[in-house]
């Protein structure tokens, strides 16, 4: 009887002391997910971007007259397209990690419900999940940048390092709105639409493969509103070493505000779905 009384309180659940402490309690969950699923993502995470660089950057680039005046300061097409592909890759990871998996946790496997049954709040769960996506993107984009290094497309080491860190911001700028979207919809059919009408056009028309000036004045304005363009332009300025500090501030502010607003909304949405 005495033994029982002694062990009781020590194993009883206690509330986390803060937001980060709460999110860290999800750490072993996400590590387990990583340990069980990493094989499934090896090809899409590492091989696909490499093939894109080879096909479009190197081979198609061979047919492109590289003139820094028409390529936003890049002296080869590969140097132009590489940073665009890196930023698009960070976006793709945010999309793939926060669409079907979120629907699974919400509706099919109902993992979120078991999470809030512990002393964890929706804000802890969202922080842990976003942290997971940002770390995954940083890792994948880090490998991508290392693969690109021998092609001679970078101007300086610190520029590449900064460009790498920027991918965390790009990932967050997409992870938060996509998470908000996935938490807001009823059925998984909507994912086909967000990929088709969101991710693919963003990838193709945000200055990744060609300068947005080629789109004409009206569409150029539309492209400038695209969060990916801000990520791509920021990354490209850093890898090409042609910084315009005013634009840097605009890009960082745009992505930062987008992430903050959608983050706040996503926490509220998750609470609404789990509690009501």
């Amino acid at each position, binding site marked *: 009887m005495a033994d029982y009384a002694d062990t009781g309180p020590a194993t009883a659940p206690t509330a986390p002391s803060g937001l980060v402490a709460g999110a860290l309690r999800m750490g072993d969950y996400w590590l387990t997910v990583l340990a069980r699923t990493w*094989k499934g993502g090896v090809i899409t995470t590492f091989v696909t971007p490499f093939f894109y660089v*080879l*096909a*479009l950057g190197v081979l198609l680039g061979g047919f492109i007259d590289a003139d820094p005046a028409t390529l936003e300061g890049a002296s080869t097409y590969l140097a132009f397209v590489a940073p665009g592909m890196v930023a698009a890759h960070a976006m793709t990871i945010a999309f793939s990690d926060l669409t079907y998996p979120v629907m699974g946790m919400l509706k099919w496997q109902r993992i979120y419900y078991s999470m809030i049954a512990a002393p964890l709040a929706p804000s802890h769960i969202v922080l842990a999940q976003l942290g997971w996506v940002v770390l995954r993107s940083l890792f994948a984009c880090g490998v991508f940048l290392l693969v690109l290094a021998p092609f001679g497309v970078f101007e300086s080491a610190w520029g590449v390092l900064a460009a790498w860190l920027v991918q965390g911001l790009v990932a967050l700028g997409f992870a938060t709105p996509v998470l908000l979207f996935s938490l807001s919809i009823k059925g998984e059919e909507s994912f*086909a639409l967000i990929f088709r009408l969101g991710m693919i056009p963003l990838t193709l*028309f945000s200055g990744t*493969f060609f300068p947005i000036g080629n789109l004409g004045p009206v569409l150029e304005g539309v492209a400038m509103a695209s969060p990916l363009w801000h990520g791509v332009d920021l990354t490209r300025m850093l890898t090409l070493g042609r910084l315009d500090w005013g634009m840097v501030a605009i890009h960082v502010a745009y992505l930062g505000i987008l992430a903050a607003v959608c983050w706040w909304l996503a926490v509220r949405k998750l609470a609404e779905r789990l509690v009501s």
Partner: protein
Amino acid sequence: MAILNAAVSTAVARPLRGGEAARLLLWRNILVYRRAWLVFVTGFLEPVFYLFSIGIGVGAIVTGFTYAGEPIEYRDFVAPGMIAASAMNGALLDATFNFFFKLKYNKLYDQMLATPLRTVDIAVGEILWNQLRSGIYVAAFLVIMLAMDLVHSWWAILVVPAALLIGSAFGAVGMALTTYMTSWQDFEKITLAMMPMFLFSATFFPVTAYPDWLRWVVEVTPLYRGVVLCRELTLGVPSWGSLVSVVYLLAFGAIGLAVVRRRLDSLLLT
């Protein structure tokens, strides 16, 4: 008693004729997509986006392209490549991911086989549905090409059957491979075959970009045969050599279909 007999006799399953079975399956798929019509309608957009982005956006900075001895615009070169690639992508998506889901998770085919449908009806019905869908997408794409002045000959009409041929070849082989899969992780292997073909089969740049030994490898891939076939048709320069591509794709599809039939029999009926 007569009433009872009548009730029993209508409840007894009667064998379906081939055409009837396929029609039922088509109708089922139409009903499914009625709930997700936006997904259906936007299905043709992906190659259009690629055409605008790579064909026109990147095309503005591409120099020096010749095809069949004539200098051509980059967008003329890319558009037929996009048709062939999207025929492959569409067919493979349906024949791999969706087919696997219906086979393993929905148990859709087990349910169907409890009715008078046979495995061959299922295979034929699914393929017909895919063909109908890709046919609509290709026709829509062709109209866009026409509007953008990218169609240069009446031969282009044959692009629709050519794309269906590409779709059925990849669809049959994709389905055949899917019957051997055990988990979602296996689909990475499909991606590993599909994505390099999409990027390297003379879709975005001519095979002259490769050294001779590699060029030979590219030229025997089924997607390359499809791309070349579509390009010969939209540019209006088909030849007897085009028949090589046709026969190649037909054989590819026939082998796939034979395997699918045998595998479905052993997977679903035992």
